[in-house]
């Protein structure tokens, strides 16, 4: 297989205007990845699949990653004049890295039996995260992109059937996000009973001395009689 740099240069030639960046992996696994800009992602993906020397026809794993806004502390050595003597001083600086949601695709080639190559796309806006869907290129992304949509809340444009898959349809939040807060009571759910119970209370005159704190206020009655 070609190196990541070579693939990047080829892809940039094939898809005009595509901005591809090599994201190096600092760990010992030697699996670096290509960061692809969202506008040209489908074009680059098709190139990776169809080019005879690459032919990444098998998209194995598709997943989301949530990177929150974080501060990276850096110490840089600068030369300063301290007490008339020039010294190297460690200067701590903090850099804010904005957060983003990321979709990661692991590609292999069944034809040429090589891989993996990892491609990433980033959606900077948490409230309206949008990425192009690669399901038209690799069908195997269909259920996995649905899962990312469900658990991370990334909307994939061009996906044929984008709806929740693991959580139920009425669920509101995206539980795999790092800033997700669990509800404090999992057991509570709105049942007809709550409404019926409140309505039932209006048939009785309040008996605070027996029922304790149960008092029907005027606003409760108004809301029920509308």
């Amino acid at each position: 297989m070609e190196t990541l740099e070579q693939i990047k240069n080829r892809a940039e030639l094939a898809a005009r205007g595509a901005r591809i960046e090599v994201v190096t992996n600092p760990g010992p696994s030697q699996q670096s990845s290509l960061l692809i800009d969202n506008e040209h992602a489908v074009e680059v993906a098709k190139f990776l699949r169809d080019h005879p020397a690459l032919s990444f026809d098998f998209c194995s794993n598709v997943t989301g990653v949530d990177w929150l806004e974080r501060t990276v502390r850096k110490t840089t050595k600068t030369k300063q004049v301290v007490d008339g003597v020039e010294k190297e001083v460690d200067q701590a600086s903090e850099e804010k890295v904005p957060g983003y949601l990321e979709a990661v695709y692991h590609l292999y080639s069944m034809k040429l039996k090589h891989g993996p190559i990892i491609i990433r796309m980033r959606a900077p806006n948490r409230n309206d995260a949008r990425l192009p869907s690669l399901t038209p290129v690799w069908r195997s992304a269909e259920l996995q992109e649905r899962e990312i949509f469900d658990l991370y809340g990334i909307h994939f444009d061009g996906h044929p059937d984008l709806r929740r898959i693991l959580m139920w349809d009425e669920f509101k939040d995206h539980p795999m996000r790092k800033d997700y807060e669990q509800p404090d009571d999992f057991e509570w759910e709105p049942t007809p009973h709550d409404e019926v119970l409140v309505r039932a209370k209006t048939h009785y005159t309040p008996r605070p001395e027996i029922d304790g704190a149960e008092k029907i206020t005027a606003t409760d009655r108004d809301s029920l009689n509308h």
Partner: protein
Amino acid sequence: MENLSATVETIEAMERPPVTMTSRLDGELLEVSMGPQHPSTHGVFRMNVALEGEIVRKLKPVFGYLHRNHEQIGENTSYLGSMPYTDRLDYFCSMTNNWAYALSVEKLAGIEVPERAEYLRVILAELTRLQNHASLLGFLLSDMGAWGTPLMYAFREREKILDLFESLSGSRMMCDYMRFGGCRVDASDEWLAAAKKIVDRFPKFLDEFEKLILQNEIVIARTQNVGNLSPELAISAGITGPMLRACGVNYDIRKVDSYGIYPRFKFRVPLGDHGDTYDRLMMRALEMRESVEILKQALPQIPAGPIVNPKVKLRAFRPPAGEAYGRIEAPKGELGFYLISDGGPNPYRYRVRPPSFINLTVLEDLCLGHVVADVMVILGSIDIVMGEVDR
């Protein structure tokens, strides 16, 4: 979610190839919810099926009944803490789940595995493959209406292998056996002798089982030319494992990635011709024979030595920052773990690539145009386990 319409679509509008069955309800579609409580859904799995007479015109799988957000739990525990929890993914094959996770963490942290541990891993993974494939054939026959007998034949053999697992790891199904850089307990010579005895007797069971099942006229009538899958669609849809090889695509991760010590063993990769349900059944039977071959080579060769890399500190285990994707050929297909480390004691991202979940991508394509009774056979031949599908 999208509702399956019960009335609007006519036969002409569907533009499907003509089918030979003649039962129809004047072009009306009948919506049937199959599952979640059904013995042949292998757990809690539901399919919204639109039927025209008996013929499937639409099928939407509904997931999530067993969802417990395994991945988030993995991100909130230490690396080692997730190891017993991987047993619960595909609860038939806890050994291969352990191996896939251990392999990914070893890639992430750059850990070497001693030779004896590699041999033990291969032996246990192939034993797992034997018992998984045998019980799959039993379950499938059960789905087809052969209640009891074939499944019990398969379970009789599975029980022997589970006894081996129990005597080695202390647990029959939730083994929790592998560790980063090795295995948890060593196998005694008696254990290896017992394993050899079971492996030597296994082909006899296979002969009997194949005669019983694969040459059975009813099984052939129910499975041949049912649920054909083309190799192009299989590759595009990311199908892996025996289901992919039934379409004739030669892709076995044991050969391609040659992880562990698989290059040392001689074994063949069985391939199918038609990609139908019968081929998928056949693939399991043939793979069991190859697993027996691997075991026959591995059991006498196993060297003495340590079973865990002494350099690995399992307590306060902190791999360096980075990411890794490791995958193995699990009995159901490619099982992968994608891990991102930020240098802390917990993984920043812990992702499971479940084979049976992704193999379900083509369920609708396989079932369209077949009668509703075939849906259960096709689903059974995909080999799903809901613990892994819903995670």
